[in-house]
């Protein structure tokens, strides 16, 4: 399965939120809500074909945390 990098998460969130974030930004504190999560997931699916479940966003909270959770999920498969 394609790996999704922290940089890709940052790019998606920035596109959806229309503001700059870093790999350690808590995306929910930065204004991401459930609709924005869905938009990010749709963008990732479009770019990589990977169907990222919502809980990795809610659990990961930062781009680095989210990328790590995605990696862990894929490793478990």
């Amino acid at each position: 399965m394609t790996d999704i990098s922290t940089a890709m998460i940052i790019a998606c969130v920035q596109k959806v939120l229309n503001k700059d974030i870093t790999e350690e930004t808590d995306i929910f504190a930065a204004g991401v809500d459930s609709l924005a999560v869905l938009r990010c997931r749709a963008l990732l699916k479009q770019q990589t074909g990977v169907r990222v479940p919502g809980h990795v966003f809610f659990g990961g909270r930062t781009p680095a945390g989210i990328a790590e959770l995605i990696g862990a999920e894929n490793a478990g498969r």
Partner: protein
Amino acid sequence: MTDDAWNALLHGGLWRSPRMLWVEDDTEYSARRVDDLASAVEAAIAAAVRADGPVRVIRIRSDAKLGCFAGQLAAWRAGCVAVADDGGFGPEELDHVRPDLALTVTVTGDSWSVAAEGAADRPSAGRAANRPGTDRAAGRTSTDRIPAEVVAVNFTSGSTGSRKAVAVTRGNLLALFACRGLDVPAATGRLTSGSFARPAYDGWWFDTWRTVAADGTVVCLPGVNEDVFAWPDLARTYGIDRVLLPAAVVATLVAAVPEAIAGIPWLFSGGEQFQVSTYRRARQAGLRNHFVNLYGPTEATFATHRYELPEVLTTPLIPIGRPLDGCRQTLRTPEGDRNGHGDADHPSTAGRELVVAGPLVCLGYLAAGTLAHRFAEEDGERAYHTGDLVSVDDAGDLVFAGRLDSRIKVNGTRVDAAALEQEVAALPGVLDCRVVQDAESTVAFVRTAAPGADTALASLVEPVVKGFSPAIRVRLTDSFPTKSGGKVDTRLLMARHRATEEGGER
């Protein structure tokens, strides 16, 4: 007559049908397999009855929709009230129904197990029981506790207070299954329904039971936060004809992943007011689906009115339409308005209360495990006063115009919060509006497509809100938090507002 039809549904040839199919988590279950699972649950019920005496109310716990469905079938075959619990019940909900027996159904792929919860330490029938949640003293499980015709429970969403347990009868469900106004043309000649509603919500009766009663196929859709991207494949593979979604979920999908619903010809929206802005966005996103706005209180099984949206919508609000067959409506002038207290500036406050009557109206409310309140009959039919105010448009369709209990007091002035929400939501650029009041203030939360410093939009909204009351604050936002059932979480909305307010003032 009802008995015959009910028995035919529970015991008839349906469960040997080669056409009926249940699809969940990548597994297909034939009617026979569903029947097998129900038989396993029935055996567990029989064992519990042998050990501890008769049961009347059975709580069915299952993370799988199939577990809840087959559990309901089994409970009904055993002459019991089936309460499907997908994990969302608290002590208050359970106390309304006071189950005699709790079964946990675990489904994994094509295998399953059924366990009676706490069976070992339950009191035997010989001893009088007086324990919370299992009230099995002699006589309590007979039909005088809950009338025999009651087979299930609808829980209200609790948006107007605590969640109430509505007693659903065999006759209610049969009337719903027979209601032609909810039919859609099936592409393959047999109905295939996408199932989104969780088992404890009344949409469940429409998604699953009504479909199975029509010998159709139920395709369980993964949650939006799980794998919404699987929806198009499921729609294509099984030829899903219809899906029911809460209005807030339709709005989210239309905005973020319209392709998820593009392949499903008939979209039913219910639970909340379906916003014109959502419909416009859906069309702009290229969605060609038929949209049906359903209306109905939980106290009337599932729905009482429907409105099919025209290709071009010219009205500022989406009507709730006309009564489904078998439902009779009466419009009553609210008490306070009979003395001429109607508001000329806001004619929607002059709406009349909608009363629904007929076989879809449930029996009453359960509390402490008994039928505590029975809905009264009016002109020979059970009737329910919805508390919803409606007006009639030029085409003869009903339009939601507020709630009797939405008349809030702001600085001593009576304001119809629902009417305000309607007027604001109809403004261009506005997606939705909610008025929330707490001990300190009243805030009109306005959901817009382009939030933040949208001064042009704010200047459009402000005068409308101030027209109702200058004391109501306006707050633009790009999202509303929702509860698990899809309704807007107004408490959280206010809490967030408070948090940012306090943060800003420091």
